[in-house]
């Protein structure tokens, strides 16, 4: 029987990294995610799996340590919270440009600036629209439970290596801090250096006489070469949209109204749906699991049966822009959000929903 352990979402990230063959974690302390590195330091995986854990001097350094580690074909990850992610945007752009796989966890807090250590979802644009410079995207996974925090580390690495692209786990303070039962999946071994050299022939494993040198770079001064590199990236993002959209629906089959919410807000909105249903209102929930690629097609599939759709966020209206693009003006797109780290109750969401549909 599978082993279940009660743990925080942040701890689940750490335990999952060790159990899923992660080669290296490089991080810098910041609330509300410091338990990730603290748990790793307590677990001492370098004595068991051989995983490297290092506290870097800054988020700028940790993301660049990922660039180095990923260049070696290793499974490397970091975690931080909003202000730290802002510092990492430079590195993420380089990782995307150099086509390097890695997993980055953002346990989002309230912003802008130093903001608050309470939960938030205000980093949606930063995560889904690039964040750093240039035309790039990342896989963005939005967990809404401690179990998903655990599972998305492995899924994140799978997708990062499938596309040779950074994968971001966009969590929030609630999901990071809450304790839940987590099922530990079977252990996965780390890859040996020989396996890496064979499986990832692009990696900087040392130039042997039988192959050309490997160079990891995002630089291409020749305009034609650089356009080709960009076209390749765009083709990859298109493929992500075709093959790796993930979402969950709750009571959407007969729904006349749908709430779209992710992360902790999706958990809260489930209760809102139940309340609406108890009153005979046909309300459903769409929970994007991948924020990029966004479940545009599912929203388009649902739109003809809907009277309204509503984005519920812990931000000032960011995801709503992707919903509007999907709906393309066919039905009203409503919005409810709280800022400053305030997490609304299901009742508050329900009141806001009713107010909008009765306008």
């Amino acid at each position, binding site marked *: 029987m599978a082993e279940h352990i009660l743990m925080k979402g942040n701890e689940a990230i750490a335990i999952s990294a060790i159990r899923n063959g992660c*080669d*290296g974690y*490089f991080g810098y302390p910041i609330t509300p995610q410091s338990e990730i590195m603290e748990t790793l330091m307590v677990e001492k995986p370098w004595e068991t799996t051989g995983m*490297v854990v*290092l506290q*870097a*001097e*800054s988020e*700028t*350094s*940790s993301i*660049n*340590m*990922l*660039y*180095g*580690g990923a*260049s*070696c074909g*290793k499974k*490397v990850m970091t975690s931080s919270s909003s202000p730290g992610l802002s510092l990492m945007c*430079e*590195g993420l752009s*380089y990782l995307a440009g*150099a086509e390097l796989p890695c997993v980055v966890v953002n346990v989002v807090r309230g912003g802008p600036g130093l903001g608050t250590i309470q939960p938030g979802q205000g980093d949606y644009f930063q995560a889904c629209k690039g964040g750093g410079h240039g035309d790039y995207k990342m896989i963005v996974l939005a967990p809404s439970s401690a179990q998903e925090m655990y599972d998305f580390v492995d899924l994140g690495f799978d997708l990062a290596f499938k596309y040779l692209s950074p994968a971001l786990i966009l969590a929030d303070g609630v999901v990071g801090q809450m304790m839940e039962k987590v099922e530990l999946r079977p252990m996965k071994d780390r890859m040996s*250096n020989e396996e890496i050299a064979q499986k990832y022939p692009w990696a*900087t*494993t*040392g*130039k*042997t*006489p039988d192959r050309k*040198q*490997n*160079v*990891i*770079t*995002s*630089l291409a001064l020749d305009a034609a070469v650089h356009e080709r590199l960009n076209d390749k990236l765009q083709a990859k993002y298109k493929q992500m949209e075709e093959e790796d959209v993930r979402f969950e629906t709750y009571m959407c089959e007969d729904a006349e109204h749908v709430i779209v919410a992710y992360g902790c807000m999706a958990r809260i909105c489930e209760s809102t749906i139940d309340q609406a249903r108890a009153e005979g209102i046909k309300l459903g929930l769409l929970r994007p699991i991948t924020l990029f690629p966004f479940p545009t097609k599912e929203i388009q599939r649902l739109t003809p049966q809907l009277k309204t759709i509503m984005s519920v966020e812990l931000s000032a209206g960011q995801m709503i822009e992707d919903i509007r693009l999907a709906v393309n003006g066919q039905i009203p797109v409503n919005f409810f959000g709280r800022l400053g780290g305030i997490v609304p109750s299901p009742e508050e969401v329900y009141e806001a929903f009713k107010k909008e549909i009765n306008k």
Partner: protein
Amino acid sequence: MDVKDIIKPENKVYSKTSVLTDNVMHYCPGCSHGTVHKLIAEVIDEMGIQDKTIGISPVGCSVFAYNYLDIDWQQAAHGRAPALATATARLFPDKYVFTYQGDGDLASIGTAEIMHACNRGENIVVIFINNAIYGMTGGQMAPTTLMGMKTATSPYGRCEELHGKPLKITELISQLEGTCYVTRQSVQSAAAARKTKRAIRKAFENCSQKKGTSFVEVVSACNSGWKLSPVKANEWMVENMFPNYPLGDLKDR
């Protein structure tokens, strides 16, 4: 004896190492980068570690170092090479990992990364090219620009009020516990180049003995940035750079 009798394979005493590629370097005539590239390539060749060496190139003129040394390379963001090297050396503890960085990269935008990598004693080699100027962007003032020196962003000469004094980063680095070998060399003459090669060799050997960070500064000339001929630039370097950046070992243990 006729020249054609001398030029025979059995009489060859010096030729290009195969670790250097056949690409023509993009550097300006007389640039120190080319000489230092060659010395590193020769050390890699002589130690037989081409398949175990991973270079980290910076942003700056030497961003294209990977076109000239036939080894695996990672090209880093500006100043971040020591962070890449840290992860690479820790994940591949049996490889030889070196960064190649200029003064803008290492001593300005990348001070945090180089300080902490050296302080942790990462088992890496750092090659630091100090020519007191930003070469690639067109000759702007660097942290190591000398007092009074005219650059594109100090057109009336570096003055203390406006810019502060030159940063003696290598002296700072030598204070850090993690460094095992800190030296300052140059390549304007054959004797100096041979000394620099010995220093680079020692740094790579320290790596195999896992002694910590080895730091080799090469005081270099940027004749285009300094607006001098290659030969005059080397003379100016000896006259003006060496008093501020004296050659020799700062630390060897």
